[in-house]
């Protein structure tokens, strides 16, 4: 099996690396501290086409390339995980429209998401529908020319900043998961308002908001995908987006934490020698690196399966589960290697440790990934 990036992918990665270093890194600490959404960074991403990576040329994209999306997310996450979250969740929303949108919907909504500087948000979660996403209580009632939505959504990433939303609602409560549908909603549509913006432990510069939906009239042509198939559509979309949103993001955070640690153990002198000579610490580094490389293999392979048109849901779940736990493990170890300095806000590691945690939670928790994986491995139990 050959593992090689194409020259295009290499140039995409190098460009994203430079962008992350020059645009994201200098403000990462500031936007974390002030919880400021870096709108200007998003605009710069649009300008150089980062938002369009991996989507069809027909809608302003670069051409399908999931691995390139992974590479970009990874590079940005190295320098600012919050920006990586904003970007990758935006792309996740676009991915849903790419998978299930009609030609008209893609021209009208996918194109501005990719090239027009419009931010996307995807809203499935509700106060009583988290891991059990089938328990959606937002209701959509069909009228002659529209669906009327009522309910409350929570934890919607980019919610307060988005121009285009994908919202899941119950169109037929009796059918449960087979009665959920997806809708495309434009910002400013009467009936959609932003409620509480969450105050979070990590990825603080990203926006996580509540959506208050009251008599929101969504035109019928904005039904995304098939009526009553929204739950399947949402899960299928998350199968792909968790490879970038969580796995690639986690990979980037972990890599940067390792790089910082390697540098630090060589520079820091205690007992008259660099602490890197201590075998116990060398073994930490070996563990960190090994897990990172394993996470990378899973993540790149899952992305490659998407690009090859092969089934990828199970491997994607493994990549998400393993990479996110690796990020938490590696950032935790990295702080240990930095001693008291790692605990200080003057160094980026404490931020990276807080940021890493989200990757174990969103896009399906680690436990839910294990559920997905074991279900596939064990199969039906008699």
């Amino acid at each position, binding site marked *: 099996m050959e593992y090689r990036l*194409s*020259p*295009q992918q290499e*140039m*995409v990665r190098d*460009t994203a690396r*430079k*962008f992350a270093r020059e645009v994201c890194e200098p403000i990462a600490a500031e936007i974390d501290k002030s919880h400021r959404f870096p709108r200007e960074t998003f605009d710069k991403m649009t300008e*150089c*086409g*980062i938002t*369009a*990576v991996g989507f069809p*040329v027909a809608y*302003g*994209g*670069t*051409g399908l390339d999931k691995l390139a999306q992974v590479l970009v997310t990874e590079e940005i996450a190295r320098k600012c995980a919050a920006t990586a979250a904003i970007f990758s969740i935006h792309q996740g929303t676009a991915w849903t429209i790419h998978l299930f949108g009609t030609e008209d919907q893609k021209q009208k909504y996918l194109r501005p998401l990719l090239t027009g500087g419009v931010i996307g948000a995807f809203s499935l979660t509700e106060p009583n529908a988290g891991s059990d996403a089938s328990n959606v209580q937002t209701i959509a009632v069909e009228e002659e020319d529209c669906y009327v939505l009522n309910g409350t959504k929570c934890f919607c990433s980019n919610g307060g900043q988005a121009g285009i939303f994908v919202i899941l609602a119950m169109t037929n409560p009796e059918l449960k998961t087979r009665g959920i549908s997806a809708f495309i909603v434009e910002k400013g549509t009467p009936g959609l308002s932003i409620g509480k913006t969450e105050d979070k432990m990590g990825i603080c510069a990203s926006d996580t908001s509540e959506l208050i939906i009251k008599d929101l009239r969504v035109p019928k042509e904005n039904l995304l995908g098939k009526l009553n198939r929204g739950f399947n559509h949402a899960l299928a979309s998350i199968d792909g987006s968790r490879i970038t949103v969580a796995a690639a993001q986690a990979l980037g955070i972990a890599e940067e934490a390792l790089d910082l640690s390697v540098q630090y153990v060589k520079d820091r002198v205690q007992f008259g020698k660099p602490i890197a000579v201590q075998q116990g610490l060398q073994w930490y580094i070996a563990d960190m690196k090994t897990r990172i490389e394993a996470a990378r293999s899973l993540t790149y392979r899952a992305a490659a399966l998407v690009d090859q048109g092969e089934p990828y849901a199970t491997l994607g779940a493994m990549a998400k589960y393993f990479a996110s736990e690796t990020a938490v493990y590696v950032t935790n170890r990295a702080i240990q290697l930095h001693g008291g300095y790692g605990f200080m806000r003057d160094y980026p590691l404490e931020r990276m440790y807080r940021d890493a945690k989200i990757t174990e939670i969103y896009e399906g928790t680690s436990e839910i990934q294990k559920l997905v994986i074991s279900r596939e491995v064990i199969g039906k139990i008699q």
Partner: protein
Amino acid sequence: MKIIVCIKQVPDTNDVKIDPVTGTLIRQGVPSIINPDDLNALEQALRLKDSHKDVHVTVLCMGPPQADVAIRQAYAMGADKAILLSDRVFAGSDTWATATILAAAIRRIGDFDIIFCGRQAIDGDTAQVGPEIAEFLDIPQITYVRDLVIKGSTVRAERMVEDGHMVIEAPMPVLLTAIKELNKPRYPRMQLIYKAYSPEADIVAWNNGDIDADLTQIGVKNSPTNVKKSFVPVKEKHCIELTGTSRAIATGLVDELKKLHII
């Protein structure tokens, strides 16, 4: 308006290490980039393209086949055409030979209003190639350009000098060399990266058969520069510690400075 931008692929480092034994640049393991000043030249050409009608930008690069990535990156930034000049007979060329080759290629392209070079390459560091091209083509040149305005068929440039700047006007065709103060180069556009690697892209490779550079003036054998020796100057520090009372230290210092004929 037709603009030709000369770009050089260089090792990505500001202090290139020199092999103490062979006296040549150590290039292994160092990733390659487009010379920074050349990106400023390209950016200015692209800004002219963005702000004026009918501007066509060609990128020209002499280098080994690996320099392919440099011209594709320039294309992904927005150039209309890219040409890689690559031939064994070019190998080892010094500034004279390099400028001879680039001038021959520019003659082959034929139609141009502005030739834009970087001020200086971060590896060779001579800042000679641009001016030499202008001389070979017998056209005016303005070096160290930090600002540029086009007025009809002339250019007006601010040329940076040590203690200020000059404003110089010249008729086109003209050769300009860019410095980093001129602008901030854009990133390659992701969509164009993929286009740069597609058959649609106007990217060609030329060898000497295409440009007919004078074979007696190019390549390592015909380069008038002879590098006798390259070395990193050894920094030597001799320290003397003076101790005792303040008075003793002060007199001691005066004595030492006298010994060195400084006072």
